[in-house]
Structures are given as structure tokens and as C-alpha cells.
């Protein structure tokens, strides 16, 4: 990427002169309001969430309230529905991220080549990412999955198969919608990676007699490593929060088959109005996501580090 690099950090330039204290604040100062704004916007609601997680608060019972210690956490962690939601979230996230990553890589490799109308194709490919999640979910529910007039069944009906997608494979149905939405995102990141490959290196590989597969394995893939990591991480963090598709398509059902953590929290907060328990569940989810994000990043980084 050719973002503005401050003079002095470019390669081969002399080491930068130490900034004086005044100069440093001169640079930081203008950023402070923005920083404070971001902190206020992100951390204050979170602190309130933490506060509520220690309160016995049910909106429908005016007499409820007051400090309840860790009772909410106990209630949430002991709830089999919460544990079920954890499992569903893991399956949903892993499935959707991996599927969209693989599809995105494939599409990026294809789009990396020059061909007539590439710009048009690329725009079309990105479209699913620009559709509002709610609209996308509704679209899939009615025009793709519907057992009578859905497109998927229309495609497979010549083979004499008829599948009630959402009922028979609820989790898979949601994963497919998410993969459809997130493949373009993965593709964009990976395409940027592919296009940032120095052409001389590829040229040299060809001169040395490496085939396309060999080139991909030894040069392109290691180069893509960081882009894959980024795509994986951002995709995971966003897909963990999936709500729209579940709300619109299955309402968490049939049974508890598609109730993931955000939907579980939604039910706690707005069906049961158990503010305390919902907040506790939210805090648990944030903590778990942080741990997983850090852990996954370490694992992935070291894995690739060793390989290269």
C-alpha cells in the first residue's frame, strides 16, 4: 500500500531526528479530541454493561434492582441454552469464515488475471457485501431457500430432489448466507494482496522454470499470509456478531438450532428483559472474543512464521 509515509521512515533514508517534547505534542494534540470521542463512545457503554452485569435488574419488575454479586454470571454460565448458543456461535463463525475465505481466495485468484470486463465483474462480485444484512437475509429466505418457489430448489429439482433448506439444515443455511455476504470482503483483501506482489519476482520464478502451482505455493501463498490473517481475524470478529440473518430467517429455531450468542443476548434483554443476565452474557462474550482473537492470532502467526 502506498499510504503517506512520513519522511524518514522510507527505506534507506537516514534515521529520523528525535522530536522535541513540544513537537510531539504538536502532532498528538489535534488527534486528542478524536481519541477521547472514540474512548467515550466505545468504553462508557461497555462500563455500563459491566455495571449492569452485577445488578439484579429486570425491567418488567419495578421492585428488582440492587447489587447481586456474581449471581448473573452464575445464572448465565449455568444455563444450558447459553452453552448451546456458544457451540452454535463457534460452528457458525468457523463455518462461515472458512467457507468465505476459501471462496474469496478462489475468486481473488481468478480476478487477479487480466481479462475483458474485469472491472464490471469485480463490481458485480462485490455487490453482496454492499447489500444490507437484513435485506440479504430476507432475500435468501424468500427467493433462495423457500421450499416451493426458492431458486435453490428450482436448480436441483430436475434431479428429483427437494430440500427444505432452512428446516433440514438450519445452521448450514445461515452459514451459506453469511458466506455469500462475506466472500467479497475476503476477496477484496486477498486481491489487494495478490496485486501487491512484485511482478519481477513472479517473472523471475517463471524464468527459473516454476509452474503456476509451484509459484503459488512458494511465492504467492507466503506473500498472502498476512492478508489471510487479516481477513480471518476481521471476518471472525464480525461474523461472531451475526444477528440479522438469524432474526430474519429462523428466529433462532427450529428449537435452539440457530440461536447464537447475539441472538441469545437479544432474547435475554428484550424477551425476558433480564438486563442483568443479558449484560453478564455480553461481558462473557466480549472476554471470550478477546481471548480467542489474541490466541488465534498468535497461533496463526507462529504457524506461518515457521512455514516461511
Amino acid at each position, binding site marked *: 500500500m502506498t499510504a503517506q509515509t512520513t519522511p524518514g521512515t522510507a527505506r534507506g533514508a537516514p534515521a529520523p531526528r528525535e522530536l522535541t517534547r513540544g513537537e510531539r505534542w504538536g502532532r498528538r494534540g489535534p488527534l486528542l479530541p478524536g481519541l477521547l470521542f472514540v474512548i467515550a463512545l466505545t468504553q462508557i457503554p461497555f462500563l455500563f454493561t459491566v455495571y449492569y452485569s452485577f445488578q439484579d435488574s429486570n425491567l418488567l419488575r419495578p421492585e428488582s434492582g440492587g447489587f447481586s454479586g456474581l449471581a448473573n454470571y452464575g445464572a448465565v454460565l449455568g444455563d444450558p441454552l447459553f452453552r448451546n448458543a456458544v457451540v452454535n456461535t463457534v460452528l457458525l463463525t468457523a463455518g462461515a469464515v472458512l467457507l468465505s475465505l476459501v471462496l474469496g481466495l478462489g475468486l481473488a485468484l481468478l480476478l487477479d488475471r487480466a481479462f475483458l470486463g474485469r472491472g464490471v465483474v469485480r463490481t458485480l462480485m462485490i455487490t453482496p457485501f454492499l447489500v444490507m444484512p437484513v435485506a440479504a437475509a430476507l432475500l435468501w429466505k424468500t427467493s433462495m431457500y423457500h421450499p*416451493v418457489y426458492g431458486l435453490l430448489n428450482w436448480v436441483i429439482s430436475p434431479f428429483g430432489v427437494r430440500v427444505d433448506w432452512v428446516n433440514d439444515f438450519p445452521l448450514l443455511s445461515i452459514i451459506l448466507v453469511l458466506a455469500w455476504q462475506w466472500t467479497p470482503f475476503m476477496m477484496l483483501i486477498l486481491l489487494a494482496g495478490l496485486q501487491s506482489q512484485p511482478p519481477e519476482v513472479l517473472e523471475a520464478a517463471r524464468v527459473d522454470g516454476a509452474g503456476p502451482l509451484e509459484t503459488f505455493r512458494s511465492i504467492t501463498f507466503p506473500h498472502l499470509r498476512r492478508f489471510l490473517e487479516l481477513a480471518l481475524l476481521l471476518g471472525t470478529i464480525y461474523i461472531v456478531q451475526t444477528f440479522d440473518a438469524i432474526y430474519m430467517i429462523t428466529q*433462532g429455531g427450529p428449537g435452539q438450532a440457530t440461536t447464537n450468542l447475539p441472538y441469545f443476548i437479544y432474547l435475554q434483554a428484550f*424477551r425476558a*428483559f433480564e438486563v442483568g443476565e443479558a449484560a453478564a452474557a455480553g461481558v462473557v462474550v466480549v472476554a471470550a472474543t478477546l481471548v480467542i*482473537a489474541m490466541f488465534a492470532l498468535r497461533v496463526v502467526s507462529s504457524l506461518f512464521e515457521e512455514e516461511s
Partner: protein
Amino acid sequence: MSTRTPPRGLPLTAAATGLVLMATACAGAGGEASGGGERVVTVATVANPQMEDIESLIGEFNDQHDDITVEFVVLPENQLRDRVTQDIATQSGQYDVVTVGTYEVPIWAENGWLLGLDEYAADPEYDIDDIIPTVRSALSYDDQMYGAPFYGESSFLMYRTDLFEEAGLEMPDQPTWEEVAGFAAELDDSDTAGICLRGVPGWGELLAPLNTVILTHGGQWYDEEWNAHLDSPEVQEAVQTYVDLVRDHGQAGAPNAGFTECLTTMAQGDAAMFYDSTVAAGNLEDPESSSVVGDIGYVAAPVAETDHAGWLWAWALSIPSTSTDPEAAWEFVSWATSKEYHRLVGEELGWERVPPGARVSTYDIPEYQEAAAAFAGPTFEAIENVDVEQPGLHPQPWTGVQYVAIPEFQDLGTRVSQEISAAIAGQQSVEEALATSQEYAEETAESGGYRD
């Protein structure tokens, strides 16, 4: 990104942390609506056609009350409920008039969240006695009315007269569920489902029709001592009947179909019968949204053991106790629920759009009788026949039909409906679904402190 290799993990993790925190924290935050000022009435309403009609006619109200400004906050049903509950429970007082249903009114009245309306409504011009008695009692707590009905609904069975004639079948005025199952089996073919019934989880979705089936089979959620009876043979039989019917002869994709989906299925001519809300009739008789206009017959809700089996729901306008100007709020409420308003809608927007099921006198207007000829009678009868005190065979310690009027029911009902929806999807048997549901219900009675 520079081509050097800085310690990458850290900044990325930091960025990720920020994103997670932001997204999680913001999920719970509500919005703000405008309000305040002198004689401003802020109305939270549900986004459905009848409510939207109020907005278009508000000019008439302004002509009579030039000192009052009415501001509308229009939201879809679920969001409205979330938002209004938050507003009222936290006593933040954004709204002067809220739109609530028969489920909320007694619970909120008990909490002291709503103002009693009897004193205001005593004005003879308002004619409180003209309100349909069952609706009025569903919107009352301790013999005081806490919500003025904007429109009311019950449930009935809609069926395709042309298909029945073709097959040589005759629909009785009040079929039993057994007969309905027979008709469904007869009329079920590859193009047309025998019947469309809700299957999507949600206390206001699947449970609404299903509860009327449970009640008419002699089942009940709780007895007078708050013992749960969801695993009783009567409930077992009722739920089995419903699940079998929708699995064998119902619409495809039933576990994800709710009111809207079934209404579409019926309006497109893809189902022979449809048991649901009386408000569906307005859409089925509207040529713009329906391909089966004139081919639909309406009969009373199917029964088993009881004489009547319809549910009762009404959207009502209530004044929260936090309202800053209850007098102005009542001016608006009384206008929007008056006889005069019904006439206004009929004359300005068309008679079939008059809010149904709120006032007896509406059904005496000749123009309305003509415009709603197909369904006005059955709707009125269905609403009038509901017994909100004891809809089933057994006495119940709450008022209401298709729900248990306790705050915990939104949660309990949602959980139970998820279990039954799984039975409709074939993931578990009805016995398993009801065994789990019984546990939930027992737990709720216990934790809610209803049982000593």
C-alpha cells in the same frame, strides 16, 4: 502497510479489541425521540396500515386543537415493544401516548406504569359503553380501563369456497379440529397446501393460534395454584393435532412461516385453509394484494371441547404515568378512538379501512357493512364470543386468551414456542418438546414467585 516486519500481533489485536467493544457495547443502546415543549403529544405507534392512517388524518385533529402538536414515533411491532418497555420501565417519559396490546395493559397497569382512563372517558360524548365489552375487559385491570382500543381482532378460519365446492365439501359454521384435519387431507395436493398455520418461534407467532387449540382441547398452561400443566394429556393431544396437521398437510417450510408468510401463501392461492387473525381478511379481500378476492369464506375458530375458540387481541392507546401532559394526551387518544374518527376514516380513506373490532357502533354503519360484507359479521361475532376470563375449560388466574398475562411470559412463551417449532421441523417429538416446556413453565412459576 510497510514492507518491514513490525510486531504485527499487537496493533491488530488492539484494533480488533476496539471493534468488539464498540459493537457489543452499542448493541444495547437505545435511540432518542424528540419531545418536550408546551402541549406536545409524542405518540409511539406500531407500523401497521391502520396506525399509519392516523398520521395522514392528523390534520383534522389539529384543526380542532390548534394548541396541541402531535409527534409520531412509528416502529415495527417488536421494536415498539422493546422501546416502549424500556422507556416506561426506566421512567424516562419520552412518550405521552403509547400503543400497547392486551397482553401488556394489565401487567403494566399493575406496575403503576399507566394512567387509568375511566375518569377521562366518563365524558358522554366519548361513549365508553360503545366499546366492545370483551375488548374493554381485556384492556382493564381491577375494573378500570387502562387502554383505549384502537382496533381489535380475534381469530377465525378462512377457507377457499371454490376449492371446497370443486371437491364437494361443505364447511360447517363452526368446524371441529377433527373436521379441519379431514378437509386438509382431502384438499392437500402438490400445488395447494391443505392448511396454512404458523410455525415460526415466538410467543406472538406460533403460540397465538396454538394456544387457542390447546384451550379448546381442555388444556391449560397453569391452574389456579400456578401448577404448570403443559405435559397433560389434553395439551399433548392438542399440540399433536396441530403439529401433525401442519406437518402432513400444511404449507412447505412451516417452521419458518408466521402470520405474514401464511397471509402471502393464502393470498397467492397456495393454501385451501388458513386459521389466523381476523385482520387477515382485509388483505385477502383487497385486489391489490390478493389473487383470491371473493373466493374466501369465513367461519368461527375450529373447536374441540369448548363452545368457542378464538383469541382476542387489541391494540390500545395508553397514557404512561410519566406523561407530562396527560390532558393533551387524552385529547388525542379520545379523538383517535372515537366514533367520529371511524366515520372520518370511512369518508376520507375508504370504509374497508375503518379500524375493526373496537366499537359496536361501527358495525351499525351501513357503508361499513357494505364495504366489509364478507368478513365484518364473522369478525364481530368472533370478538364478541371470546371469554377472556376463562377461555378454556378450566379457570385461570389471569385474563387473556393466547398468552399467560405475566411479565415472564414473553420469555417463557418464546422458549416453549422454540421447542414446539422444533417438533414441527421433525427434530424432536411432541412429548419431548412438551416435557422441556413443562420444565420451563415450572421454573417460571417458581422463580416468578407465583407459587408459595
